[in-house]
Structure formats: C-alpha cells, structure tokens
C-alpha cells in the first residue's frame, strides 16, 4: 500500500499516510518524483565525502541515523529508504523524515533550503522569515501571522528553486509543529475539538503538537520571493534593510543543514539579488510572537518603516 502526495513541487510516493502533507492524490494522476520505502539501510556509504557523528554523505547519497527513531538513506534526489528503530513512534518517524532527510533530498536535486518559513504576501509573492541569531520563535510568529489572515507556504525550512529568471519559494508541509508553551504564549486559536491530551504530537513523549493548517491558512503554489527577514538579536527593536554583497553572505550563511549535502548556492544568491533583505532585530526586552507578528504585518504594508517598538 502506498500513498501519493504533492509537496515542494514534487510528487512523493510514501508507504504510509501522512497527515503532515494534507490529502493524498489519486495514484493514477501522476508518476512519483520521489519514492519513500521501508527497508534495510547499509551500515556505511562507500567513499563518503563527509562523515559526521550520525551521518555520512556523498554528493548523491546521505545516510542519517537518528537514534531511537530511524536511519534514513537518501539517494539521488529520488529515493529515501527508512529503517526504523524498534518501537519508534510512527509520528516521530514521519516528523524526522520531513525535516533533515527531505531537506537533503531537495539539495540533491539542486534546490536550496533555508531555516525558517515562507508566507504569502497580498501581491502573490513570498516573504521568508529566516532564523538568524535568534534561533527560536520563527514558527510561532508565522502561526500568529496565518491566524491574522496570511497564508503559510512552508515551515521548518524554505525551499528555493529557480524558475526561469526568478527564484521561487516552494510550498511545503500542510502543518506546523508547535510547542505547547508557544501555543499558549502566542494565544493562538486552536483547531475545533483540540485538546492537549488527544491532539497529535510529533513524538508521544514531547509536548509538541502537529497543527494542521486550515484551508484558508495554507498556500500550495510556488511564489516568487520578494522579501527576506532574518531574525537577529540587537539592542533595539528594529527592521533594517541589508544591501549589497552582505545580502548574499547573510543568506548563504543560513542554509539549512549544510553538512548533509553538496550545496547549490545559486538559488540563494539569486534570491538575494531578487528580494529585499531585512534584518529583524529583537530588542533587549522580552518579546512575544504576537508583538513580532504585528511589527512584521506593519512592515509588509510599509517596507520603508525602519524601526518600530
């Protein structure tokens, strides 16, 4: 039994249902670009170009061991084999699959990924919210924004591809993974019938919940990238435009899981050239996701706004 899904502009054949990807599509409607299976994964990858504590890779292959969950073998941008650990939770096997292994697969196909999320702006372009020094909270900010009417293109990472002369952000998972305290602090509206006890989690032992995006909050078509916001620390709350070659340096320094694949920096270089790039500085005072979302919302409407507090 297999299931077909459309995500990141690719058709995936999976050996299990994946609510993270929304509704499956008719198996007869498309040939898969990527096939995911369960099976035995080799202990080593011959002639590995890079070996980490838990991974080995060549240009075309990645073997990633996530202890207690599964070993993932990603090949040629076309196939992923999963060898689960005994008693590994199914939700955790899927969550892990849709993170590093999927990012590596996209890199193998020449797609670049950046840590963060993408949102649709009213002019049918994408704004990327990227984790810089401020590593946390980007997903919660994105959740506050989609609750306020924006649409989420992707979370965890942004996938960037070239389409003609443009760089586009590809639509990702149809859900977000959010911690309970983030959901509570951001005062996010929870789905009808949601209870902490029964809601799906990324791992049964973690208070981290899968929030399936309502239809009105998700965007499932590629969008040209027009804005990039890199979340950093600073003395004052501010949004400052980045100019020149620093745009490229900034984005290339934030490529997601850069050790897991040969990187194609061209999409990020082109994105830096195509988009307005801003650093969003958190100030010294504590911030909550809704404050940052309000600042961003104002800046989406008026990009000449350099600072707000």
């Amino acid at each position, binding site marked *: 039994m297999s299931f077909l899904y459309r995500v990141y502009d690719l058709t995936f054949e999976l050996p299990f249902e994946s609510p993270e990807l929304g509704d499956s599509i008719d198996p007869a409607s498309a040939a898969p670009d990527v096939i995911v299976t369960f099976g035995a994964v080799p202990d080593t990858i011959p002639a590995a170009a890079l070996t980490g*504590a838990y991974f080995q890779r060549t240009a075309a292959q990645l073997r990633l061991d996530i202890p207690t969950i599964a070993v993932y073998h990603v090949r040629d941008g076309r196939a992923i084999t999963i060898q689960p650990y005994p008693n590994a939770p199914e939700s955790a096997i899927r969550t892990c699959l849709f993170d590093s292994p999927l990012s590596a697969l996209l890199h193998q196909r020449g797609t670049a990924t950046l840590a963060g999320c993408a949102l649709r702006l009213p002019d049918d372009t994408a704004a990327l919210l990227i984790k810089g020094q401020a590593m946390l909270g980007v997903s919660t900010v994105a959740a506050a924004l989609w609750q306020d009417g924006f649409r989420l293109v992707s979370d965890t990472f942004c996938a960037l591809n070239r389409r003609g002369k443009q760089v586009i952000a590809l639509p990702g998972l149809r859900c977000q993974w959010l911690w309970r305290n983030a959901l509570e602090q951001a005062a996010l509206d929870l789905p009808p019938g949601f209870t902490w006890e029964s809601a799906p989690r990324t791992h049964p032992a973690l208070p981290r919940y899968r929030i399936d995006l309502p239809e009105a909050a998700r965007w499932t078509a590629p969008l040209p990238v027009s804005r990039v916001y890199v979340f950093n620390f600073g003395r004052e709350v501010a949004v400052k435009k980045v100019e020149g070659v620093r745009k490229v340096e900034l984005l290339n320094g934030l490529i997601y899981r850069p050790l897991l694949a040969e990187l194609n920096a061209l999409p990020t270089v082109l994105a830096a050239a195509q988009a307005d790039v801003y650093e969003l500085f958190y100030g010294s005072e504590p911030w909550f996701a809704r404050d940052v979302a309000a600042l961003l919302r104002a800046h989406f409407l008026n990009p000449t706004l350099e600072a707000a507090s």
Partner: protein
Amino acid sequence: MSNTIVWLASYPKSGNTWMRAFLLNYLLDPPEPHDINHMGSLFTASTRWAFDMMAGFASAHLPSAAVDELRPTIYRHYAAIDETLKFLKVHDAFRHTAAGDPMFPPEATRGVVYILRNPLDVAVSFAYHQDASFEDTVWQMNDPDAELGHIPDGIGGQFTQPLTTWSGHVTGWVDQTALPVHVVRYEDMTADPAAAFTAVLRFVGMEVDSARLEKAVRFSSFRELRQQEEKKAFVERPSTGNFFRKGVVGSGKSELSPELIAQIHADHAAVMARFGYG
C-alpha cells in the same frame, strides 16, 4: 590524537563568559575587541544549534533524555575533527548519562578549566540574571536537583543542564579524577587578570605572548564587555536587564541580608573554606 576539548566549566555567573572573551581575543588576536555576539567558535556545550548542526538532525524531535545520551558522541566527534584546541563553555554538573557514558569523555578532553567564584557574589549575580529573589536563588544553590535551561512544555536554545548544588558543582568538577583540571578563582582573575589567564594558557599547553596577552586582557575587560552590551546587546542576555551587570568582588556581602549570608555559609561551609571564601 583527539583529546582537543578544553571544558570551561563553572557554576553560572562565575566568570565563564569573561574567560571566553579573553580566550577569543588571545586566540584570534584581533585589531579591535572581538564582538561578544560572535563567540560562536567557543560555544556552550549545551547549545542546541551546535548539536543540531553536528548531528544533522533537530534535537527537538527527540525527548531530552534521548538527546542527553547522544551528547558524548557529538563531543567525541567534534574533538576528532582536527588537532586544534576547542574550548567549550559548560554549566552542567560533572556527570554521566543515564546509560553510564561520561558526558565529558576523557578521550576527547585536553583538560578542564574550572572557574570558581565566591557563592555570596554568585547568589547576587545569579538572582539578577534570572530575575529571581535572593532567597529563591540561595535556596536554588543548595538544591541537588537544580537545573538550568529547562523550559516546561517548550524548548530553549540550550539543553536542560543539571547543576546540583553550588558545592556539589564545585567538588564534582574539581575532585573528579578522569580529567586534568585547573582551578581559577574569579577573584584572582579580577585582582591580576594577566597572571590568572597566563596560568590558564600554560595549563592548556599554549605559548604565552606577553603583548598579545596584555591586549587580550584589555579587549576582554569588564568595561569593554559592558560597553559592547550597551551598544548592541548580547545574545546571551537574560530576559531582564544586562548580562554584564557589575562584575565586582564583594557584592554578596553588601547586597545580601545577614540571614542569607549565614545561610550560604551554613550550606557551603566546607567548600567555601577550602577555596578561601571564609
């Protein structure tokens, strides 16, 4: 040889960041004081992004107990990347994982620089840092189950770090016999930074260049660190106030009540006497 890690171990608010700032200014020998917000090459051992980068997957997908078991493997791998010395800040108590693996593997370790500060002053600084009362902080410093970085129902940039008591933290690191250890007191760093830092450099087997040392001491002075924080903030700042607050010796005696001073002496008498905090 892969014993390239030097653990900069301390109880919180004992001078660890000052030590890191000095080492970076000495190692990199920059023409201007090194940016306090770019101390990434001397990151904290419990830093989540560093683990995720080296592991290749998000630690957030695993329960913290499972991540704890993987940390020693990451450190062994990091130590073996090349022959250069690697300084890692650590506030964790000296310990083993639940499965019995040394959290700080001897085969990855060059040595431990243990930074120690009068617990009276630690109490004041730690209380301001975590926006807690002096009373609660003094109690915390005698709690064998005390932790740092634990966020209920959430996730932080640091893994949860067991601290144990202040005395237990000191003796755990100083009296362990698996790793070579050099003890440096905050008060000695303050009184004669050049001498204190020279001893650290010699302990880890580095040449001491006096001109470079003098400049590194100047570039990492409390005044310089405080100025940088005032100007551009500090990524490791607490949620309230500054990270670099006063940095003085003796604030405990002037700010704590006589009862709390007596309590700290009662809780930590043996270790305080051993290290000259009578």
